[in-house]
């Protein structure tokens, strides 16, 4: 029966090609617009480090003192003293201090002009914590952190730029005025969004140079910049003792029990600092969020993208109403035909399924063209000068979602018209013939 209905549907669609084309087009445009924007939203709200995002935590305390009245959330960064206090306690399975600064980098052997790059100052645990992939060599050791070793890890990009992609482990790099030894070269690595550095743009690239926290404090002294300050520092470039936040701490806590006890530890620390008079706000502004909670609180998806998704959904709704209206017209136009079929013994159910098959065919066609439009839309997004452009690709999930949405949309659109068509009273139609 299905094959027969399919044949009938195709015949009926062929009868009025223009109307069919317009209906398919309306569905396709609605699907294309909404799936393009939804794909972008889906990609932008992805998990940057699947599998580990639940055990990586971002502790926050609030050192602002005195605290402004409108200061309701702690800053997404810490002052130097709080960050190093918490790090030195070594109460987590792994812990990394993180901050970044611009620095002048030269490779004396290559004779290339100097570059200004972003340097990430961090500690040894950073690499295993964030599962950073290495092409050559490895990260540095905790011993290197303690001894302020002059070592560095560089990105695949920088390695390609300076050393043509060859194994550069053991070669030296001049960072500002200090020679450092390259101990590791990363594979191309771009967690999206760039979650570990709350200062950076959400979808920017990773830093090009990674150096031990303590050594880089000395190497690049004076070039670190504050996220914000609540008192003007006497010297804007020397932030260790300033009333500024500019360092972040990440910890890995492998079980919920550990996460709870770590949260207690941070709370105790904040309360203790408040008792000492260093903090104005204690436990009320302590946050220990995991990656996804922290990213949600920070707001990952750009406003413009969310706005586009809203618009596209409204647009899809309009296309849906349009499809319902046109299908209704199309089915009821055949009332005479339906009346004859009913009079000859077809059940309401048969008429209903025949109409649904026809709606489904339109949906499949609309879905196919909508999918093509989605691909075109994503291609257009990739051409835009936005920092998330490289992400705009269809993945399997969104591919399936697109198709399911298309067919579901048109079946939904076909439901009411098909019901109406199946309730055509045969006698009236026969009389009218």
């Amino acid at each position, binding site marked *: 029966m299905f094959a027969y209905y399919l044949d009938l549907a195709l015949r009926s669609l062929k009868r009025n090609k223009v109307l069919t084309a317009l209906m398919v087009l309306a569905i396709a445009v609605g699907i294309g617009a909404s799936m393009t924007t939804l794909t972008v939203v889906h990609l932008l709200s992805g998990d940057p480090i699947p599998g580990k995002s639940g055990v990586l935590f971002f502790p926050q305390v609030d050192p602002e003192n005195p605290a402004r009245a409108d200061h309701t959330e702690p800053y997404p960064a810490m002052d130097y003293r709080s960050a190093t206090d918490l790090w030195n306690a070594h109460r987590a399975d792994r812990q990394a201090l993180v901050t970044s600064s611009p620095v002048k980098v030269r490779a004396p052997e290559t004779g290339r002009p100097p570059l200004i790059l972003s340097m990430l100052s961090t500690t040894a645990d950073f690499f295993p914590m964030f599962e950073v992939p290495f092409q050559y060599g490895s990260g540095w050791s905790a011993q290197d952190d303690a001894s302020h070793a002059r070592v560095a890890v560089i990105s695949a990009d920088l390695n390609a730029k300076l050393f043509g992609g060859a194994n550069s482990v053991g070669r030296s790099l001049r960072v500002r005025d200090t020679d450092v030894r390259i101990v590791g070269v990363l594979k191309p690595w771009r967690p999206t969004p760039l979650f570990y550095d709350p200062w950076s743009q959400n979808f920017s690239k990773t830093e090009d140079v990674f150096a031990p926290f303590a050594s880089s404090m000395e190497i690049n002294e004076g070039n670190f910049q504050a996220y914000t300050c609540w008192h003007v520092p006497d010297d804007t470039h020397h932030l260790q003792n300033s009333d500024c936040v500019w360092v972040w701490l990440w910890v890995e806590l492998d079980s919920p029990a550990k996460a709870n006890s770590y949260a207690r530890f941070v709370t105790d620390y904040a309360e203790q600092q408040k008792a000492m008079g260093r903090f104005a706000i204690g436990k009320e502004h302590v946050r220990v969020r995991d990656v996804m909670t922290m990213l949600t609180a920070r707001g990952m998806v750009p*406003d413009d993208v969310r*706005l*586009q998704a809203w*618009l596209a959904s*409204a647009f899809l709704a*309009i296309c849906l*109403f349009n499809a319902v209206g046109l299908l209704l017209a199309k089915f009821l136009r055949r009332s005479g035909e339906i009346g004859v079929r009913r009079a000859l013994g077809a059940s309401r159910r048969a008429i209903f399924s025949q109409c649904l098959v026809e709606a489904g065919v339109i949906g499949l066609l609309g879905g196919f063209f909508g999918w093509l439009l989605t691909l075109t839309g994503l291609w257009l997004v990739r051409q835009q000068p936005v920092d998330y452009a490289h992400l705009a690709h269809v993945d399997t999930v969104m591919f399936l979602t697109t198709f399911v949405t298309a067919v579901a949309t048109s079946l939904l659109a076909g439901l009411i018209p098909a019901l109406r068509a199946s309730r055509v009273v045969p006698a009236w139609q026969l009389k009218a013939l």
Partner: protein
Amino acid sequence: MQIRPILAALRRHRLATLLIAMEVALACAVLCNACFLVAQRWKLIQTQSGVDENSLAVLTVNGFEPTQAADVNARMLAGLRAIPGMQAVTLISQVPFGPQAGAAGISRDADSFKNTIGIVDFVLAEPGTFQVLGLKLVEGRMPQADDYRPATNFAPMDAQVLVSRALAEHAWPGESPIGKEFWCDKLHFRVMGVVDHFARAHPREWGAQAAEWTVFTPTLPGGSLAGTYLLRASPADLPRVLRTARDAVAKIAPDVVLDQENSQTITDLRTDYFKSDRIMIDLLIGVIVTMLGVTALGIVGLASFWVQQRRRQIGVRRALGATRGDILRYFQTENFLIVTGGILLGMLLAFALNLALMTHYELPRLPLYYLPIGALVLWGLGQLAVLGPALRAAAVPPVVATRSV
């Protein structure tokens, strides 16, 4: 035109009528809000910088030590000034649409946590920069030679400054700002003049109200004022002069690194800065046009169906003496009634959508005059869409009444 028979007929087609009305309602809601968004973005793009954008460019170098600042400044200024066609080169800390150099919260009290004014941009500038920028003084006086102070922090410790009119009106509404004092923690400032317009580095991030909260701070070169140079040339010469200047950096100061991305004409910086808004405007206009197209399509489809369905009735009416005009007007009135219903619902939806957008984005309330404009557009669209089917209906000959099909 009698409306009652039309309403009676529509009651027989409740579902189809409802569908078209809903489509029109949604279209009306989206149309009003999308147009409003376009207008908002357009206003953003038109942000006044207050400077002679067409004649100005900025060139930034970094990668030198604070101890080298005086030497780099001297070499850069001399080298850049020697470029043919260059009218002026002066030091500045930031320009509109470029990177932000110094933003800080200020207050009317010495205790910076009380009586706050807001977060403002401090633009440090050496003697002559005021004139090179082309700022327009509207009150008070221009900076004199002894107003320029050294700055090791993001601004001098104690300085006489000029503020934009927008900041003056926000900080001291209804009063003359001249001679007023403000503080940023231990830094103290006194207002000596007001400029007409002066945009901060990133105006759109701070919202329309705060887009020009800028403090022009006369500062001596060196310290925090090094590495960013404001270039002035005639608009025709500017691209060539900037190109020459960028190439010359390697010779003038071989040790420093030119910041490629931030060495541009102000016009280019502005275009880049508002790029996402332009894309959004294009997109919104695309959505509006396609949406109106789809809506018109729906109206044409259903109207055609009704015309075909009612061929006999039309024939009977024509046979009983109705003119072609009567038939045409019947369909036009019918469409007008349906669209009106849709528009009424659409206005409510438009407000609901606007409220939803207001809670998620920093968007003002939809001005009321958008609603009648939206209504007019949709009425026009409905009438245009129904015209074809209605003309076909009017062309139905009376003889149809006597035929069975």
